């Protein structure tokens, strides 16, 4: 053991990250064209309502950490564990639409966050000609609301005591496909091959109350893995990142399952979309095709469209970059009158390993179709030291 350290800290901090005028009800500019085209300016109240009773958010954070280095600093490990209690949590709280306002900042809740960060660095091999260095890190945290407004353990389907404050996916529960001869009480206009939704409250109809938590867009853990190899003057660097345990609402998957466009042949079709339900192909989860894909979306819309049909695991490992480099020997660089010279080939975002059925589990909001995928880049370069 060459080094050993223990760290501990405790802090109480506030949160300045809120609009400075949150205690005031604000009037915004508005216009109206009285007299034809001359817009008269006015004021309109709305949006966020002022809350004069606001108090500071308080974050009590404690942290214990440990650093260990061994084998002549060839291996070092650092571990941090933290526990954060937030009271008087400041959140924009949705007001009833009939108030005429969208929300107000309130001291809504208390919440607890526990987390771990682990960082491991090692040099497994170190000889004159060959060297291998690596870094691996792993993080996770869990947050949950511990207390909400007095007398209420939920404010909405997604904000409740015992659940994380964000990243909760609320939706209808996919219950397979309707088959011929099924009872269509729940979806009177449905046809065999349509998506079936579970009637959670057993009231004989599908209403917004049949939505529940169907997943969490919160990873169970994530981190990175860095490897560096050197053989004589050639180095190879590989950087990877990973994330696991989170779910995504992959709406584009339902849209692209099969061609559903009215206007000409511009639709893309996924390969498995071909395995759609027909009266003779009933052992499938791909609904029957129809002009407007109503068999996929038979439900009242909501913050999340669709159903748990489109909730998919977002686990992935991504190779973010691979770089192969060569240091030109010094007897050559001296001839060229440069101090040093390095030539390299590099590829960025070369590989993604995932079972997620969308383009990329780590690319913005998956409910948008328009996200452009990350592109793979190849670079060839020379670095000169003059």
């Amino acid at each position, binding site marked *: 053991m060459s080094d050993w350290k223990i760290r501990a800290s405790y802090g109480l901090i506030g949160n300045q990250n809120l609009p400075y005028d949150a205690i005031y*009800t604000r009037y*915004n500019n508005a216009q109206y064209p*009285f007299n034809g085209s001359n817009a*008269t300016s006015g004021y309109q*109240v709305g949006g966020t309502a002022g809350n004069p009773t606001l108090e500071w958010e308080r974050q009590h954070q404690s942290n214990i950490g440990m650093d260990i280095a061994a084998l002549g600093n060839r291996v070092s490990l650092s571990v941090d564990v933290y526990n954060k209690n937030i009271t008087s949590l400041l959140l924009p709280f949705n007001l009833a*639409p009939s108030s005429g306002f969208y929300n107000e900042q309130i001291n809504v809740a208390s919440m607890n966050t526990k987390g771990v960060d682990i960082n491991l660095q090692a040099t497994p091999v170190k000889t004159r000609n060959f060297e291998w260095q690596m870094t691996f890190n792993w993080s996770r945290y869990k947050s949950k609301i511990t207390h909400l407004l007095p007398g209420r353990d939920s*404010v909405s389907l997604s904000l409740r005591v015992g659940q994380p404050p964000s990243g909760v996916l609320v939706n209808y529960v996919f219950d397979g496909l309707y088959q011929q001869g099924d009872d269509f009480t729940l979806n009177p206009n449905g046809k065999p091959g349509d998506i079936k939704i579970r009637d959670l409250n057993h009231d004989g109809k599908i209403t917004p109350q049949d939505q529940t938590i169907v997943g969490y867009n919160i990873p169970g853990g994530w981190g990175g893995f860095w490897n560096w190899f050197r053989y004589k003057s050639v180095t190879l660097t590989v950087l990877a990142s990973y994330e696991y345990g989170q779910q995504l609402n992959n709406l584009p998957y339902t849209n692209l399952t099969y061609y559903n466009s009215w206007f000409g042949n511009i639709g893309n079709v996924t390969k498995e979309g071909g395995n759609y339900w027909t009266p003779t192909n009933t052992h499938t989860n791909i609904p029957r095709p129809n002009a407007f894909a109503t068999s996929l979306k038979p439900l009242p819309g909501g913050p999340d469209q669709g159903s748990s049909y489109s909730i998919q695991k977002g686990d992935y490992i991504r190779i973010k970059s691979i770089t192969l480099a060569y240091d030109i020997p010094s007897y050559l660089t001296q001839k060229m009158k440069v101090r040093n010279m390095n030539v390299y080939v590099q590829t960025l975002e070369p590989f993604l390993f995932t079972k997620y059925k969308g383009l990329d589990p780590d690319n913005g909001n998956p409910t948008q179709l328009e996200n452009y995928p990350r592109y793979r880049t190849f670079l060839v370069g020379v670095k000169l030291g003059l």
Partner: protein
Amino acid sequence: MSVGLAGMIALAGCKKSLNYTPEVFVAQPQVFKDQAGATAAVTGIYTQLQTLKKSDYALIGIVGTDEARCTYQSQGYGDYWANVTGLDVYDIKFGSQNYQLTGFWQDCYIGIANANAAIQGIPNASIADPSVSSRLLGESKFMRALFYFYLVQLYGDIPLRTEATPFSAGVKRTPAADVYKLIIDDLKFAVANLWVKSKNPGIGRASVEAARALLGKVYLTQKDYTNAKTTFEDLINTNGLTLLTDYSQLFDGQHENNAESLFEIQYSTDANNTQGLQNLFGSYAGPPIPGESWGSHTPGSGGTVVMATAYYSDTVFDKNNDKRYLASIWPHRYDGNGNTMDWWVDPGLPTIKKYDISSSDIDIYNSGKNLYYLRAADVYLMYSEVLNELAQTSAALAPLNKVRNRAGLKNLEDSLGRTPTQAELRTELLDERTRELGGEGWRWFDLKRTGTLVSRVQTHNNPRAYYVTINGSGDPHPAQNITDKNNLYPIPLNELQTNSALSLTDQNPGY
């Protein structure tokens, strides 16, 4: 309360002045300090009505009726448009999370919150002329009544919030009768304190005429025919009603705020003051006039979202004699050879012409054309309805005939060769209201008031017959879905979730 006027910061030592726009905000006491501030706050209420009516929320009241329907394909434009189509076909999208009926609710209540703030604030403002102060109060109450009138008709019992209600308070659903009481009190105040149209400072402000017309409509909706009669007669005898001689001028964009208009929602081609309704009402098939050019700057083009029902476009008019027919409807679309495109089952169908842009507009998404809220012809037809319901059927013919004559039609009794019965005139007035006011936003409310919503939607919310043959059972047809429960809209789910005085069981029946 302190004021955040950051604009007062002086930067000593700077030689050049910074091009710096401070973030300024104004709170209630500053707004309602003087006449300018109070007037600006009242302007903001009008802005909210303009916002409510500038895009697809305006389809509430128009589609899902016997005169206008959503196109077959609008449902396939994506989830948002499937929600719009839900307003027409009363399917599963016509629920408590429907974007349009949720947004309509929210936008009306934003208007109400602004009216409430003004009603609370105006008495504190130092305004030299008391008649100005009471006019501003009258405008605020007129607007509050207007928004509540939409809400109470669509949703039934609703949370009633007045200037005395704190915004963070939960409010229970108030019985519709009490909501109507506030609406009537507000409008009576407005009648007493607003100025007449000709005296108003600024075209487009609520006037005595507008308040009387709306109060009469509210009484009619409540079936209080006696008070409705008095109110309409006050309007006709004291203020006078004028019809433009040429019906088509009402919608040509060149005669805004005309003599017939009682209250109009004002738009202009300034930034943020435009509306985009032509895009909803037009079609992307060829031009409606053979050989015309075609694009986002030409009247009649659009996104094929709303079309006229066969009842409105093909059967309700006396096509040869009624001048309103071609002023209201584009009957055909044409290809490059001048042949009709009636074969194209959706875009080729007749569309409503009243929202067409005029030559001064930017494009079909940005039109400066005003929208009618109330006009004289509506009042004449309502007055006729009131007299007919009071069993004064012969007297009811006179106001109806004014509207008919302007359209180039003979008196009804001359066309029929006799005086109609009360029941006949009832049906005739419903037809006449479509001929005169089709697509102007009152139809759903007319049908609900007369108890004919379900039956007339089932009978008339159809496209031309061949269309059904081609699209078959794929057509999202409201007749399959509409039931008595649809006389009320569902209360938005987010209201039930966030209003602490309500729970999920406070929903209207059947939703």
